[in-house]
């Protein structure tokens, strides 16, 4: 199925990417080509095949229920572009 400019605009919002006009144009054609290539998967008969999400299918790996030290707050905040002594600072979420 062909990828349209509207698809790219919609996905760019989902992906939280702001794209320039040039990027929208090139991505429409590049993603179109890649998706056309990937479409060959539709010819594979996968009836009754279980999806394989991981190479090593381990499940329910539990860690022991022990209290361990976690990252100290100041270390967790140290790389933030904007923070105060308690947390991360962001632009207003409501009414902004």
């Amino acid at each position, binding site marked *: 199925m062909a990828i349209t400019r509207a*698809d790219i605009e919609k996905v760019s919002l989902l992906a939280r*990417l702001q794209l320039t006009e040039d990027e929208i144009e090139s991505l429409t054609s590049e*993603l179109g080509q*890649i998706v056309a290539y*990937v479409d060959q998967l539709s010819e594979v008969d996968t009836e009754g095949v279980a999806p394989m999400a991981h*190479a*090593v299918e381990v499940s329910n790996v539990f860690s022991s229920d022990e209290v361990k030290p976690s990252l100290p707050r100041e270390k967790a905040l140290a790389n933030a572009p904007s923070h105060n002594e308690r947390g991360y600072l962001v632009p207003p979420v409501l009414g*902004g």
Partner: protein
Amino acid sequence: MSLIERSACELLELLDQGEVLSVEVTQSYLDRIANRDGEIGAFLHVDADLALKQAAEVDRRRQAGETLGKLAGLPVAVKDLLCDTNSPTTCASQMLKSFQPPYDSTVVAKLKAADAVLIGRTNMDEFAMGGSTENSSFQLTRNPWDTQRVPGGSSGGAAACVAASMAPLSVGTDTGGSIRQPAGLCGVVGMKPTYGRVSRFGLVAFASSLDQAGPLARTTKDTALLLETLAGHDPQDATSLATEVPEYSATINRPLEGLRLGIVREHFAEGLDGEVETAVREAIGVYESLGATVKEISLPHSKYAVATYYVIAPSEASSNLARYDGVHYGHRADLSAIQEELAAERKQLEANGDKDALEKMDGALVRMYRKSRAEGFGSEVKRRIMLGAYALSAGYYDAYYLKALKVRRLIRQDFDAAFEEVDLIAGPVTAQPAFKIGEMADDPLSMYLVDLYTVSANLAGLPGISLPCGISSTGLPIGLQLQAKPLAEEMLLRGAYMYEQATDWHTKRPK
């Protein structure tokens, strides 16, 4: 023979016997980097003072008779996506240009515990997305065999620094071939272990179900030494395997008796360069002369591997890279510029009376995310995030992502069936030797097809190794790939060593 020409195992012996100091070894490599890396560009970050300090400390402890780690005093280069508290960890991205990890990745912690000297951080395609290291947002890395050509990628710096004798050992990561392919193009040994063999804790995630760290070196024995240092169960990575790690370097010189070698029919199809085919077939002939039986096998779903990979890897990437939001760490766009931009857009839409567009306009927070990510990510990263977000979006999930997961199982089942009949699979690493810088820059799809022979091992979770097996008429290295069933690294390394002993390709160096 100068120190930088020695193998890691030889250096370790000299260090142990007190014939050379780690400070001397480290200084030799630092000098080599100073002389050579201006042209090659393998390193993003070298802290010579810190490296020499680590080396001096190992020397002091060795002289005091203390028990030392496995790599005591040996310089090791690390790909710039494995967190190290002593170093920036940039993933070659503007997004993480000033990121300073608050903890060590398990790989780096193990290197430190082994008393290695961490000599520098190597260049890569941004967030490991690419096959040429041209997607680094900081610098190009050039192939030491021909500086007009790429070193491969994404671990291009990791392979180039070993090829150019700027480090004896190097750690890379491999999501679709990112260790084996640059190793092949740079004429060194590179190994992707079984998925789960090496902990991913602190490895900046690209595609979590495929990513695996592994060693690059000049010889298979050095590769074995580094792998046994890195491998092992880690409670901090739920996907790491609780399986004992053999001492690979101790058994590597035992030849495999009655080796059954598989040749994949589909590997020798259209598109394979004639010289690469000849070199690989000659390598197979070497195995026959060593007593191996060769059997042709078929991996019927292998032709879908690249398509499967380019659904699964970008899907996981789009999810993993959602963490770069300009809030917790990484680049944030300038807030006042965002406010101005939004005000101007609002004014324009109001003037046009476009109520629909006004309603849909980004709020300040969403625009901050979008602009920070737009500024922080390069074009290949954006392309893959977009591709993944598309494949996972409503209406397409079943057709792309779920379908790819099913084909992934068929690919794995092909290998399971093949390994009933053979012990190792031999074939090319890439269809061609190193290509020219810029040659594929405008064609993302043809760049993706470079991964043709390597992605299957990631999808199936198998270990694979790339070995030098020839030099093209243009003077470029050619790689041989061996693959084994999951957790059969010991067999893989022993098989690789057999070939290395019978040939001298691993001794060839760029001029």
